[in-house]
């Protein structure tokens, strides 16, 4: 046999490796931190250049309208405007300034894409919005949202105190020789001193790096440590765990003294998180597009845009909100239900859109009413978990329908066999919007979405006291 056989093994191994890398690679996204919201935008790679969809980028930041005219895309955003041409670097703003992107503008499937490296220039030239883009970590800070931290090593007991001007709630990973804090939602940036050596018996050094979709702070420790968040999220303390006390024949302590000692020994409890009242679920996503409303309008995109508008409307009313998805990614029904059930929210709202019919439809689950003795604490099959919450869901549906009627929107309420409503263990409804007229394009209209978002948000606002009282 020829001795070159190993070449086949090498080629096969290489192919398998490439496949593995391809499957394991996470989707590349730009994380946008804006004063009103944080979100992620998928990156499209063309000819080695990272591109970002204009609609995905700008829609959450303000009023956006766009129109395609042949190979041109005309964009109106927050009072500014720009005209782009497919395959050209140059674009024109409302004041007739001719500017150049870092690479050619792209029109793909009716959507405009600009190079990620030109994001700050674009925001500045169209809307006069200052921003900062950290290319390596793919983080975009709009309107000076980024903030720095300060670190101070204190003694007796040894602890590193990190102070932040805005509240933070990092994910924490405590390993044998280091503590890692991940800032996924907070726009924390370097304080100019990323690598610090302390040479302390507790703390050797610290390191701060921006990573894709966040930032990471690492404390290299020499003793076991705990992490606590205090001061309403403004302070994170990494403290050395005190060595276990040596048992001695201590005098009998009073109950008060015992409690005091116990409190000192226990690490500071995590500050309570702001509990969301509503979890908004923009249905579909990724390759699962939902209804094709028109050649340029997909249900998944309308649902997400509506979710973002509704989020703004709710937050303007002081109602905390979380979204199950903030980008064009697919979640399974079970993932959506689990997100809802672990969110500690009071109301789950799935958002859909359809080109058929007119106005707004509000749906509750078609799960059976709870049987005698069945309560929220009962052990129920996953597909019937909604049953004890059906009364609250019906109340929510009625409130939303009433508010839509009040706003002059045609509305209808009904029960339907819909997933994941059956598996949600809180008040759960689905809202489907349809055009008022006969053109599905109306669903993409900012005015129409805004009108619906305002009506639904008002309906949810009326529910707040009622739903929280029943929990």
């Amino acid at each position, binding site marked *: *046999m*020829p001795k*070159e056989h190993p*070449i086949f093994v090498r080629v096969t191994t290489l192919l398998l490796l490439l496949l593995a890398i391809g499957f394991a690679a996470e989707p590349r996204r730009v994380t946008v931190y804006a004063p009103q919201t944080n979100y992620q935008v998928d990156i499209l790679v063309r000819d080695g250049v990272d591109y970002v969809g204009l609609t995905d980028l700008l829609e959450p930041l303000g009023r956006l309208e766009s129109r395609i005219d042949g190979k041109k895309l005309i964009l109106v955003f927050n009072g500014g405007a720009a005209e782009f041409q497919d395959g050209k670097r140059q674009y024109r703003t409302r004041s007739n300034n001719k500017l150049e992107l870092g690479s050619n503008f792209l029109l793909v499937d009716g959507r405009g894409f600009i190079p990620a490296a030109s994001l700050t220039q674009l925001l500045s030239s169209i809307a006069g919005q200052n921003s900062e883009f950290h290319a390596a970590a793919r983080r975009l800070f709009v309107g000076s949202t980024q903030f720095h931290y300060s670190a101070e090593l204190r003694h007796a007991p040894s602890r590193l105190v990190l102070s932040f001007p805005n509240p933070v709630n990092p994910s924490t990973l405590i390993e044998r020789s280091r503590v890692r804090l991940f800032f996924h939602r907070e726009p924390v940036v370097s304080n100019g001193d990323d690598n610090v050596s302390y040479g302390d018996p507790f703390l050797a050094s610290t390191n701060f790096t921006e990573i894709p979709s966040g930032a990471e702070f690492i404390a290299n420790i020499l003793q076991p440590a705990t992490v606590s968040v205090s001061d309403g999220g403004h302070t994170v303390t990494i403290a050395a765990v005190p060595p276990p006390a040596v048992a001695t024949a201590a005098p009998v302590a009073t109950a008060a003294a015992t409690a005091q000692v116990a409190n000192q020994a226990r690490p500071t409890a995590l500050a309570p998180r702001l509990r969301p009242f509503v979890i908004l679920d923009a249905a*579909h996503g990724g390759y*699962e597009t*939902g*209804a*094709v409303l028109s050649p340029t309008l997909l*249900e998944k995109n309308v649902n997400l845009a509506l979710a973002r508008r509704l989020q703004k409307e709710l937050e303007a009313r002081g109602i905390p909100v979380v979204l199950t998805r903030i980008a064009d990614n697919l979640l399974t029904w079970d993932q959506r239900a689990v997100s809802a059930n672990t969110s500690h929210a009071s109301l789950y709202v799935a958002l*859909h859109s*359809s*080109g*058929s*019919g007119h106005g707004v*439809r509000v*749906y509750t689950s*078609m799960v*059976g009413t709870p049987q005698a003795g069945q309560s929220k604490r009962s052990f129920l099959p996953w*597909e019937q978990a909604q049953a004890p919450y059906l009364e609250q869901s019906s109340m929510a549906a009625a409130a939303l329908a009433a508010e839509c009627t009040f706003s002059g929107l045609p509305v*209808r*309420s*009904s*029960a*339907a*066999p*819909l*997933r994941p409503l*059956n598996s949600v263990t809180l008040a759960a409804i*689905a809202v*489907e919007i*349809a055009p008022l007229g006969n053109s599905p394009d109306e669903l993409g209209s900012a005015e129409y979405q805004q009108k619906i978002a305002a009506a639904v948000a008002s309906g949810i606002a009326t529910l707040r006291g009622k739903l929280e009282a029943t929990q």
Partner: protein
Amino acid sequence: MISRKLQYVVAALVLAILAMGFYLVHLKRKAESISAGPLTQALTAPVNGPAEQMTLYLANDEDNSLRPDTISSALPSDPGERGRLALHTLVTRYLQAGSPHPLGTGADVHDVYLLDPASAVVNLNAAFANTHRSGIEVEQLTVFSMVLTLKAQLPQLTRVRFLVDGKTRDTLAGHIDLTGWLDVPMVAEASKSLK
């Protein structure tokens, strides 16, 4: 150097793979043309016997309604066949030009099986689901109209399940859940808002 014998073997394998690929595509196209070709409209099975009343619940997209429509037809005595005929007739109405609730070309009901007098399994063809318009309401109208039409023919019915080409399908067209049994009284109650 790779031996000549090995090169021949690899080349033969590549050719075989390509040939099999082309043959697979050919078979797939042939199967599609057979299943989708002639069935542009559901056919009603011919039945002999005295005419009886048959109630169809017809959906209307314009006003989101479900309205009963009674027609006279010869009906088979077998409950499963009776249900199948009713659904065939319903689908035929939806496939007619100018239907207020159009279904896609080739939509049809393969069979209706009765597991017991209270439980029916409706087996739709693939075209029914694949060409159905996507949306909660439009899917709900289709499913509810079929369940109520079936119930009108089979009064003892309490639950219905839908299969597509004999298999469980997650949703009809992305929204209405087809993975479990539909409770007929619940459907009847929910459909009150559609009248």
